[in-house]
């Protein structure tokens, strides 16, 4: 891409794709913003009218709004904490030479291939069910009273399910980074008198920071929009105990048929995502610079 002509040719070739992606993004966003300023209920078609910021006022004063915001952040941070710490631990374990390495690695990656609604159903009916579930059976076997996970700790249960799904992703990225750690550095540290723990703290952890940043940024994007797991397991309840912003938007537009209010919620969620993104980039973005 040195000459003027080749630069122009490059831009021309690129433009259809860029244009398509731009439209793909801007049309839904524009329509959502437009709807968010309308009184627009699916039960009363043809009565749409401009109402200014009324939808936003309703959304912010909705008694479910603040719990949903807190739940969203709890879910994102909880899953991030579990997957990053667990991912580092699994990456360290997978990095050890062992028998059946290939199969073990595939098994670790496997949960990532299970679609979210299916894994949520498996967790709900086979593992966490207070009557038939495996955990209940284990608890009874130990003489304890089975826990009704989705009634007593709904958000924590959903965090566990989502973390289980995303742990393979974090492990995969961190494990790949682990393999690029220079062996001579490790040997140098060994000669310098650093035991396994100090080598982990002073070499492995700093080496993994960049990969961990990638994991956190990518997962945050997806975790802000977690939906299927909530719908399948708790339906946002009990009360608002496991309602996130995404789920609140769904309830308002699809259960109460209030598209205007749902759109306003959607725009709020977009703004929240951007605030989170700015914070993240400020905090850990420097790790990505070479």
């Amino acid at each position, binding site marked *: 891409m040195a000459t003027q002509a080749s630069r122009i040719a490059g831009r021309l070739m690129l433009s259809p794709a860029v244009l398509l992606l731009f439209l793909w993004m801007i049309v839904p966003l524009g329509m959502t913003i437009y709807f968010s300023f309308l009184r627009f209920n699916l039960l009363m078609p043809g009565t749409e009218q401009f109402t200014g910021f009324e939808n936003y006022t309703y959304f912010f004063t909705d008694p479910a709004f603040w719990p949903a915001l807190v739940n969203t952040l709890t879910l994102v941070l909880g899953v991030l904490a579990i997957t990053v710490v667990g991912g580092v631990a699994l990456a360290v374990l997978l990095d050890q030479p062992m028998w059946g390495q290939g199969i073990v690695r595939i098994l670790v990656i496997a949960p990532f291939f299970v679609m979210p609604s299916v894994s949520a159903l498996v967790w709900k009916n086979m593992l966490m069910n207070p009557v038939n579930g495996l955990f209940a059976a284990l608890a009874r076997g130990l003489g304890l009273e089975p826990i009704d996970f989705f009634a007593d700790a709904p958000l924590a249960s959903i965090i566990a399910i989502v973390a289980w799904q995303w742990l393979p992703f974090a492990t995969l990225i961190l494990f790949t980074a682990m393999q690029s750690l220079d062996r001579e550095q490790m*040997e140098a540290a060994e000669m310098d008198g650093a035991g396994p723990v100090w080598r982990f703290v002073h070499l492995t952890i700093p080496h993994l920071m960049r990969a961990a940043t990638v994991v956190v940024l990518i997962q945050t994007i997806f975790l802000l929009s977690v939906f299927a797991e909530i719908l399948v397991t708790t339906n946002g309840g009990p009360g608002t105990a496991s309602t996130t912003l995404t789920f609140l938007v769904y309830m308002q537009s699809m259960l109460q048929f209030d598209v205007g209010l749902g759109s306003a919620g959607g725009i709020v969620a977009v703004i929240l995502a951007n605030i989170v993104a700015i914070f993240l980039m400020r905090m850990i973005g420097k790790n990505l610079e070479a």
Partner: protein
Amino acid sequence: MGEIVLTEVRKSFGGVSIIQGIDLVIPDGEFVVFVGPSGCGKSTLLRLIAGLEDTSSGTISIDGKDATRLPPAKRGLAMVFQSYALYPHMSVAKNIAFPLRMAGLPAEEQQRKVEAAAKVLNLTPYLDRKPSQLSGGQRQRVAIGRAIVREPAAFLFDEPLSNLDAALRVSMRQEISELHHTLATTMVYVTHDQVEAMTMADRIVVLNAGRIEQVGSPLDLYHSPANLFVAGFIGSPKMNLVEGAEAAKHGAHTLGVRPEHIDIADEGPWKGMVGLCEHLGSDTFLKVDVAGVGQINVRVGGDVPLRHGAQVSLAPQADKLHRFDAKGMAMA
């Protein structure tokens, strides 16, 4: 302080024998260079001494104590790696201080030692930089700094100069030699570059296929190579090795004569035509096709006006001939 004794050391990886029984005594304060072609096991031998590999059999003792089963950190040795192996996220000062920190020294003492090492190695202005902001030679000096602060019984160098350019290599070579004179600590240095070996070593250990071919001072090896391998390996350009009738005349199976020990004489015994002719200014390297002898490399003065195709006659210096028997061993 830093005497290293290897007794019958062997190492094999999955049935492939890499080190085939090495006996070697490295006295305290000596600069020993392991040299040999790639794959001869010299790096493996160094890693065995360092403790980064376990010996398959044999013993290694350091300072009279058996260290065969000791972990690397307990052997009191410091190693400088080919890739420098600096810790990329730590500043130069922290890199150098790392072994002290691991040893649990108080912070002031760490700082004092780091500053002293930095002064010796001219690193003082760079102490706050990260390794990625340093040149190759500076990184190498940081790696050496990290080794010297520990005041080890011996230093191990694993081809430390092979990533540097030619000019820097010469100056770092001199710096390491200087350092050896200053510290007077045992140093074991691995290289495949015989110039490094010849210029730095007190004693050279020539390795080939996991065995020691010869141990001796650089000039010993140059003047009296024990066998054909050492004769061919030490010296640049390589020694001419002549077999057949010409060697038989001198009562040997193979006759060796170094290019610098051949004169151009009017009535020399070897007559031939000059092939390739390299004028370096200080020297001229000739390849001469001698009938009945083969191609002979000759090193003559810089101002020899010979060109490709010229006819010359050569006279090897009679007292500088090396004679080898059919097994390739030097004959007295």
